[in-house]
């Protein structure tokens, strides 16, 4: 593969690269292929039960409306969470990148993205403590407000959305911040000196130039949220049935692995579609 290199360099190159990429092959790419194969089987090929190749698992998705409805529910959840993260996170990134300077900015930026690197499960669990009936939020609000309020958000869709926004907000802030920071301030000054108002500068200079970062952040939020299952389980209770939880069930409860594999692959197709749609904007970020 490396025709231009001397034979000895080619050997060194292979020696340095092979371990990492072999590992990725065994742990990521072969498993994905195995899953594609499994999704086309009538039964798991372990033990004595007969099995054959079939498209039934994919047909199952289209025969009932159950799975399609759940997938749509998950996509809607993804859109809701992404929109919330963009609306909350982009202004925050702007404030950080363009109005605060020096060490304060660095410290604040670190503070904003630090929770993202802590355990997501634990953070979802912490919301369960805050949101439950008679929990901290309810008791706290009733202590401040002059009238009694009843806030039991636990086991509801808003609870799931709040938890997921908390989990993924740092992504949008991180990518938008990096894009906004790269915008040369003199461009903004030039716009202002020629009489552009704040809104015009935002719409004609800042937004277009930082769009790749914003879209990258949105994709990084949307993709995992569509496949989420732990967050809806913990914060959603009975309303927490989503496409992801159905896939989880196929592997840990119902043990219908071929169906689970087919459902996973349909999800993967949706993810790839999203990435393909976003890629023209994302490619601009690399240029």
């Amino acid at each position, binding site marked *: 593969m490396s025709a231009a290199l001397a034979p000895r360099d080619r050997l060194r190159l292979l020696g340095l690269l092979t371990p990492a990429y072999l590992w990725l092959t065994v742990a990521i790419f072969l498993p994905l292929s195995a899953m594609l194969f499994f999704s086309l089987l009538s039964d798991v090929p372990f033990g004595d039960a007969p099995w054959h190749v079939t498209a039934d698992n994919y047909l199952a998705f289209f025969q009932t409306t159950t799975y399609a409805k759940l997938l749509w529910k998950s996509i809607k959840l993804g859109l809701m969470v992404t929109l919330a993260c963009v609306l909350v996170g982009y202004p925050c990134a702007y404030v950080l990148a363009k*109005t605060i300077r020096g060490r304060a900015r660095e410290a604040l930026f670190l503070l904003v993205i630090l929770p993202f690197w802590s*355990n997501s499960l*634990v953070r979802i669990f912490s919301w369960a*403590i805050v949101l439950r009936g008679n929990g901290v939020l309810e008791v706290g609000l009733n202590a401040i407000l002059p009238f009694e309020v009843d806030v039991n958000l636990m086991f509801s869709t808003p609870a799931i959305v709040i938890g997921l926004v*908390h989990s993924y907000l740092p992504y949008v802030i991180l990518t938008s911040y990096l894009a906004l920071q790269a915008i040369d301030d003199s461009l903004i000054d030039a716009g202002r000196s020629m009489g552009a108002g704040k809104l015009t500068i935002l719409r004609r200079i800042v937004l277009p130039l930082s769009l790749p970062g914003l879209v990258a952040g949105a994709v990084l939020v949307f993709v995992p949220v569509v*496949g989420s299952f732990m967050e809806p389980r913990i914060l959603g209770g009975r309303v927490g049935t989503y496409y*992801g939880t159905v896939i989880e069930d196929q592997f840990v409860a119902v043990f219908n692995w071929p169906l689970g594999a087919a459902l996973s692959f349909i999800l993967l197709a949706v993810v790839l579609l999203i990435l393909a749609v976003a890629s023209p904007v994302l490619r601009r970020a690399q240029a």
Partner: protein
Amino acid sequence: MNGRVLTIAGRIWLGAILVFLYAPILIMALMSFNASPFYQLPFEFSTRWYQALGANAEIREAALRSVLIALVTTTIATVLGTAASIALFRYEFPGKRALRILLFPPIAIPWLITGTAMLIFFFGIGMGRGTPAVIIGHVALALPYVIVVVSARLATFDATLEDAARALGAGPWMVTRRVTLPWIAPGIIAGALFAFAVSFDQFVVSYFLSEPGDATLPVLIYTAIRKGFTPEINAVSTIIIVVSMLVMLIAARYSKFGGER
């Protein structure tokens, strides 16, 4: 005048987001020191849940297992990732772009999909679930992060230094050990800490790959939450959050992911 109002509004917005991000974590930490098992207020200070934690052998073993898995993952991912980064930096060859793109699937594909695919594959080849499977999975998830972080550091490295060392008669191994590695050391340390965080915090892939009696800490917590909350979980969760935030704070010292000042 208008500008000042906007600036103040921006600061308030930022402050509100920080409250949103940290309040639930702080409340959870506070509740782990509350005597009531049902999170009853008023608050009454107690360390009983931390004491209960010490007596809980299941949680202790899971914690130890999580740390061990994270250390093994960190070691393997850092060595393999650094080697690959150096190769990608030093040599020009066809297919290099493709190799870089191949780093994205482990990050971009939802862990639900990679996790279940690994489960199927490891069963298919007869290895099944368990700690080795978990480690193989974690290394694959951590590798791209290490390569990205180390490559970022390598991008600031002046390749003519390698040429100079070579011209002075150093062999390839000598060049790597005495010139390249010392320069990228902060990147390697940051990459290692990222790998530790990815493994230590990983829930989804561990969930599908760990044996029921052999759970990692996050998997144990998930099972416990679904059975019903106890403040013991608060206590162990608080410890986990403190550990992973400390690891990332150290990582931040070595890699400037905030960009240039």
